[in-house]
């Protein structure tokens, strides 16, 4: 069997069916929305920081999309708690696939990294490193 069913191990299906931290924060320090237009995946991430302004205290997300994008966002919402914004910024694609614990087929990588990209771009906008009026986050380019 190929990468497809391996991709849907129990952990992924569990996060897809029971997403953690699903919802919105009342008073987030930053919020960002991103999408994969061709899949129709959309994710909104809310992040609240500690008083130090650097450590991630809480993360919530909402969205619509495939199992890979939703499970990845759900796992990421747990993983980010306690990380610094710099650590978030340093997360790369390998970190995401490692977190998912499965091989992601090449055509689906963009689904897997959408949540991470949204969180990173949100943090950049928060720090004034990215134009908030710029195009919404997309992981297809």
């Amino acid at each position, binding site marked *: 069997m190929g990468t497809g069913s391996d991709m*849907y191990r129990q952990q992924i299906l569990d996060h897809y069916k029971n997403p953690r931290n699903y919802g919105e924060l009342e008073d987030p320090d930053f919020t960002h929305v991103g999408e994969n237009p061709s*899949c129709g995946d959309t994710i909104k991430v809310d992040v609240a920081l500690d008083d130090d302004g650097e450590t991630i205290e809480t993360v919530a997300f909402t969205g619509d999309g*495939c199992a890979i994008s939703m499970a990845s966002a759900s796992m990421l919402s747990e993983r980010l708690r306690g990380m610094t914004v710099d650590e978030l910024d340093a997360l790369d694609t390998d970190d995401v696939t490692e977190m998912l614990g499965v091989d992601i087929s090449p055509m689906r990588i963009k689904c897997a990294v959408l949540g991470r990209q949204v969180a990173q771009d949100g943090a950049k906008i928060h720090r004034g490193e990215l134009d908030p009026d710029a195009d919404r986050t997309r992981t297809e380019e």
Partner: protein
Amino acid sequence: MGVQEQYPFDVGAIRDDFPILDRLVGGNPTSPGQDETDDVDLVYLDNAATSHTPDPVVDRIADYYRSYNSNVHRGIHQLSQEASVAYEEAHDVVADFIGANGREEVIFTKNTTEAMNLVAYAWGLAELGPGDNVVLTQMEHHASLVTWQQIGKKTGAEVRFIEVTDEGRLDMADAAAKIDDDTAMVSAVHVSNTLGTINPIRELAELAHDHDGLIFADAAQSVPNRPVDVEDLDVDFLAFSGHKMCGPTGIGALYGREELLEAMQPYLYGGEMIRKVTFEESTWEDLPWKFEAGTPSIAQGIGFAAAIEYLEEVGMERIEDHESLLAEYAYDRLTDLGGVEIYGPPGDERGGLVAFNVEGVHAHDLSSVLNDYGVAIRAGDHCTQPLHDELGVAASARASFYLYNTVEEVDALVDAVREARDLFA
């Protein structure tokens, strides 16, 4: 046995011409071709995206490269003459196939999209202006939708869309209302690549012509699998792609009525399309070469003709019957499965494709799971994003059939869909 007894031709014999159908998949997709990691039979149901190429066509292309590869039109040497004759005669084969009057009415393009752009630029930019309108359907492929939308912006012409009914058919009352005396062009998809709907092109042509407008049929999903005759349809322009009908990629055809093409200025300039050039002026070659600037896709053109000859040998009516048989069977079996929403009209009145969604399973997840069972389908918006917006879904899964597909392959699709549904339940 059962449905198989209704096959209009020997599908097994056809499959022997397509060695790719025997390959295994399921392994590493980053290295092209079969290797030891592949372990399940391929079930290829993505024919609306591209079809496979039978050995006789591959052989014809290889023969060109092996024995008379040369540039066309201007060469005096023998290879160039052989290539020119083969390439030019390929236009005659296409013309005969669709009932055009001759090669003057058949321009080879890269694909359907380029044919659409050729007309939009060469005719549209010159003829359209504020007050004019171009009428499309809501089920247009982006090839036509985006092209006319952008030409509309450039020229000030209004772009209108004929609505689709809840059953996935074209609303002909709406067509009659939207096509009016200001309609310069009706551009309509013949068979929808998403809904499978077979649109009444001839009726639309009558409406367009009654108002002195023209009609362009996007026949990318019809010419490959049913008899299409430009006189019967009464169209002014029609376009289709070679790679969806057993031919190679990089070649398609634009049919245009001769007097219209004659009146149009070239869309691309350069070599092979000129008659006389000075530093100040140029004059154009005769049709169809006027619209084929630069070295054309010679091998692809020759392969295109070979593909048409292959299909004609099987018979277009019989190919249509085979596709209808599989589409209806797939429609019925997916419906019986439960939790499957199929878009478009009922199984007995559609082209050979079925687009659907499974409750609780994103189309991309479905496609990934199906891939594990060797079943190749398409998932996404199929280049009809606005239609998907109308359907209220971001994406759909689409299985599309061709002459080499079998009832057993539809069964494999249905079994894999059931597995995916259960996995996500």
